[in-house]
């Protein structure tokens, strides 16, 4: 008869066990902020559909102290979200060669970050141009 009695350890609180897991959980949590901001924009869209007065009321609401603070927090979280997104991007790409040399993970992350910065600036300039 076998005397085996394999012991299975609990996974309770697993993400607190290692700093790597904590940073993973932070990355995942940033998605909730992205969702929350999507709700804010959706409300804006609904208000736009209700007419100019409603939309202006919504714009005015965004200017109160709490909403400005919320925007600052969301901006910081979005920056981390973007960085963590492109940091993991090389893991999702097939092995690629350019000019016979393997594309390094740092190049993929850097290209992604550069593209997002350019996209943000482009949107900023377009919106500024339209509002003037």
């Amino acid at each position, binding site marked *: 008869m076998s*005397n085996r009695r*394999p012991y299975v*350890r609990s*996974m309770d609180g697993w993400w607190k*066990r290692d700093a*790597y897991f904590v940073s993973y959980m932070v990355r995942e949590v940033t998605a909730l902020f992205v969702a929350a901001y999507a709700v804010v924009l959706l409300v804006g869209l609904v208000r736009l559909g209700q007419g100019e007065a409603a939309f202006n009321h919504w714009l005015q609401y965004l200017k109160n102290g709490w909403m400005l603070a919320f925007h600052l927090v969301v901006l910081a979280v979005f920056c981390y979200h973007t960085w963590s997104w492109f940091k993991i991007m090389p*893991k999702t790409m097939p*092995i690629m*060669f350019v000019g016979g040399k393997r594309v390094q993970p740092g190049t993929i992350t850097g290209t992604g970050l550069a593209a997002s910065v350019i996209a943000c600036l482009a949107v900023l300039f377009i919106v500024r141009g339209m509002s003037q």
Partner: protein
Amino acid sequence: MADTEKIIEIQVLRYRPEQDKEPVLQSYKVPFTDDMSVLQGLQYIKDFLDGTVSFRWSCRMAICGSCGMMIDGKPKLSCKTFLREYYPQGLRVEALAHIPIERDLVVSVEDFVTKLESIKPYIIPKEPRTLEQGEYLQTPQQRDMYEQFSSCINCMLCYAACPQYGLNPKFTGPGVLALLHRYNADSRDGGQEERLNSLGHTDEGYWGCTAVAYCSEVCPKGVDPANAINQNKMNSAINFFTRFVTPGGAGK
């Protein structure tokens, strides 16, 4: 001339199924020199302090994949980790996380081996060739598509680094999925469909991975299982949607 002898405290997570209800820490004071690995520290314990401590080892040079354990909470090969890095504070060694403990530092490899066998970890030739036809040719670039994934030594450190495996042991896990990709990515291989249809496109396959990517961090051989898994998700998603519109596809 021998180094001045120093003493380091090694805490070992003991589990003796015949007497322990659950694992308990036991402390040993081990004299060591700067060139001694954690494995050598354990061997000192077994030879001179306590013959009942159990652990696996073989090659002592990071190629057999036997001596993986949690060292101060990190999955490492004990032959490749030095005691001096933990001096003077001491260290704690435990059986690899997420895998059932058989005894002390020895974990059960059954699940890993069963999964490894299930993915057909060998080349299934695209076309049968006779000896007269010669070998299967491959360019260096075709070799580069799978070579790093073939460096796996089955040490299971990546399983101890994967919370998704810990939470759901049905998930095939990083090491075996990296080997699945290793064969699928080989230009000489024609067994992709066989391997993927049974496993790849399910939660037990690629989709059980949430890109924690700690597996790639702890791999002692630079295999990068997180890349092997996640680069397949795009194709897997395309397969998921196209099989409904391909004649006979959904039945597969």
